[in-house]
């Protein structure tokens, strides 16, 4: 690819990157936890909550490249849903989440 052609491709990444960075900033106070469907555990059983805890599930993975979203046990969000699920327990699971049972996806 010629440099001139590349510039037209490379430059749009700057705003994208900016978005990525800004999305890492803390949430504003208006985004309260109770309105977040990914934090709604009202229909989740005690047992599933216990499993989630025992597996060490966290909403934000400590390992950037190992996240629920690329785990073999991840269930992507169904149509119209904001968050996905995990085959090991019921309840909302974040794409960027993680537990100590993470395994790479295999085909």
């Amino acid at each position, binding site marked *: 690819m*010629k440099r001139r052609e590349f510039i037209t491709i490379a430059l749009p990444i700057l705003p994208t990157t900016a978005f990525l960075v800004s999305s890492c900033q803390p949430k504003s106070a208006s985004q309260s936890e109770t309105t977040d469907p990914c934090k709604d555990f009202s229909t989740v059983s005690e047992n599933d909550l216990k499993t989630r805890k025992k597996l060490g599930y966290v909403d934000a993975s400590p390992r*950037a490249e190992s996240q629920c979203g690329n785990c073999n046990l991840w269930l992507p969000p169904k149509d119209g849903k904001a968050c996905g699920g995990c085959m090991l327990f019921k309840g909302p699971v974040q794409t960027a989440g993680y537990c100590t049972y993470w395994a790479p996806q295999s*085909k």
Partner: protein
Amino acid sequence: MNASKNLLFFALVGLSWSCAHYTDPLTPDEALKSFTLSDDRLQIEVFAAEPHVLDPVEMVFDEEGNAFVVEMPDYPSKPEDGTLGGAIRLLRDTNQDGRIDSAIVFADNLSEATSVLPWEGGLLVAAAPDILFLKDTTGDYRADIREVLFTGFFANNSEAQITNLHYNVDNWIYASNCGQDGLVKFMRNPKLPPISVKGGDFRFRLDRGQFEIESSTGQFGMSVDDWGNRFFTENSLHIQHAPIAGRYLFRHPFLPSYDVALNISDHDPEMFQETPAPYWRQERTKRRNEQFAEAKLDRHEYAEDHFTGASGGTFYGGNLLPADYRGSVFTGEVAGNLIHRDIVQPLPNSPTFVAKRGEKEKTTEFLTSSDPWFRPAQLSVGPNGVLYVIDMYRQHIETPTAIPEDLKEEMDFFNGNKLGRIYQIVPKEAKLTHEAPKLRSKSSAELVALLAHPQQWWRLNAQRLLLERKDKSVLPAVTDLFLTHADARARLHAFFVLEGLNALTLSLIKKALADAQPDLRAYSLIEAEKWSELLPQLIEKTTDVSPKVSFQACLSLGQFTSPSVSNALAKALSQHVQDKWYRMGILSSEAGASFTLIEVLQREGFFDRMIPDKESFLNDFAHVVRARNRSGEVQRLALLLKKK
């Protein structure tokens, strides 16, 4: 499994079904018959068994030749009454016949200890959330000193906690943290701020009070080769390498990715087990695959013949096994009931490695068992060069919470927790020495000579003891060894004894920079970072024929900020832009993420012909610029790129 092996399997276990789905245990001597070694020059024998050893997960030999075993009876969950079963035992062979006949409990009441390392006459112990120092001062072989050295590690899953303590040739002690979140405090100096180990492993030096995050995410299993390269294991990923050390990777917090764990196996995910998958796994896998299909996901799970429980990688640095085994990495597979072997070779064009199968193991494994209770959690190499297999010997190894309730009904996760055993693998013709090395009673001069021993165990222990003694009278002899010895491994150990005794001079580092062995040149670059007068030599090494050296030169140069550094890094980037590690390593430094570098690249015509790897670098550079958000830099980059 082929038909004859099937028959053998059923002959061994067919009479002992305890219920419809699971087999009963075998005695250690019966279990010997369940093994198949790929090499008929070797044999496997019992070294230690219950009641001398229970639930073993690691064994190490201290400088005297004492075998310390870590026991983990609380796996997979600690008792609810709060008692702790973890223990460390000293195994003894009182009649020196090569088989353990007694044991002393060195320490007990431990919370999930998984790894030990001999240190200053005692043991460092990884027992999340702590790293402890235990020592016996009364001569009864029971620890009476118990000091918490570090605390704050993740402690909620015994399979992913702080573990794998290794004293390395560079005088740092490495430990695997599996990337878990934790704020770690050094209790010998509580005034130091705690450090976050989130996303990485851990390394520390007690002689200098240093500790930091390391850039890998190992789980249970770490092997360290003759040159200090670390390879680590994580369940289904049986051998990984991290080419960029943490002190470089985390120099600035703006890289688009901090993941440097690379799967170096060229034969994943396949393995060749003899045991059929247990009933619960077959059934669970069937259900999961149905779920994948239902959700229309292009995903599959394999119940067997694929790595899932790789644990405990061990570099063979001994010289007892035939010469073709030197340098191999052996890894246990607790789910496949086998031991896998990798031959690890440096890549010719990249600062990392490839792990290959051996010639005799293209369609089999180094060792397989037909006994589903065989759980090779870890391996170990003794001072006599014997390869030991630490067999936890459990009916089940799996996180219970990950198994559906109905399948768990007939499973006892503690079945076997009194049945551990340790085997030894030796050549059939071998004459084993059982004489204890007793390094503590050796003179410092004798220890210096051992830095050139052909076996890794001796070299590392001699180095450690020399530094422990801080006996500067050895400096002339060590310097002589470094300057004259024909074996590069001896020169390397001598180099780091000098480093540990603060005796590395400019001229010695210059000498090491010109060494014929690339690893030694690479280590000398790290030392050269402390000497600004060596900057020209550092720059020169960016064009070294060895990628290990030229890559390290790029990382080391990034510790400097002069304009000549950006020039040199730009040149190195042009030459190695196809390699992800050079791109990432260069970008990790201030100079490598500077506008001076981009300007040099532009001047040299780097952007005239774009290829995907150049785009990738530029994208990552743009990410750094945006993320660090310095005044005017985004506009400056946009302008630069628009300029003809």
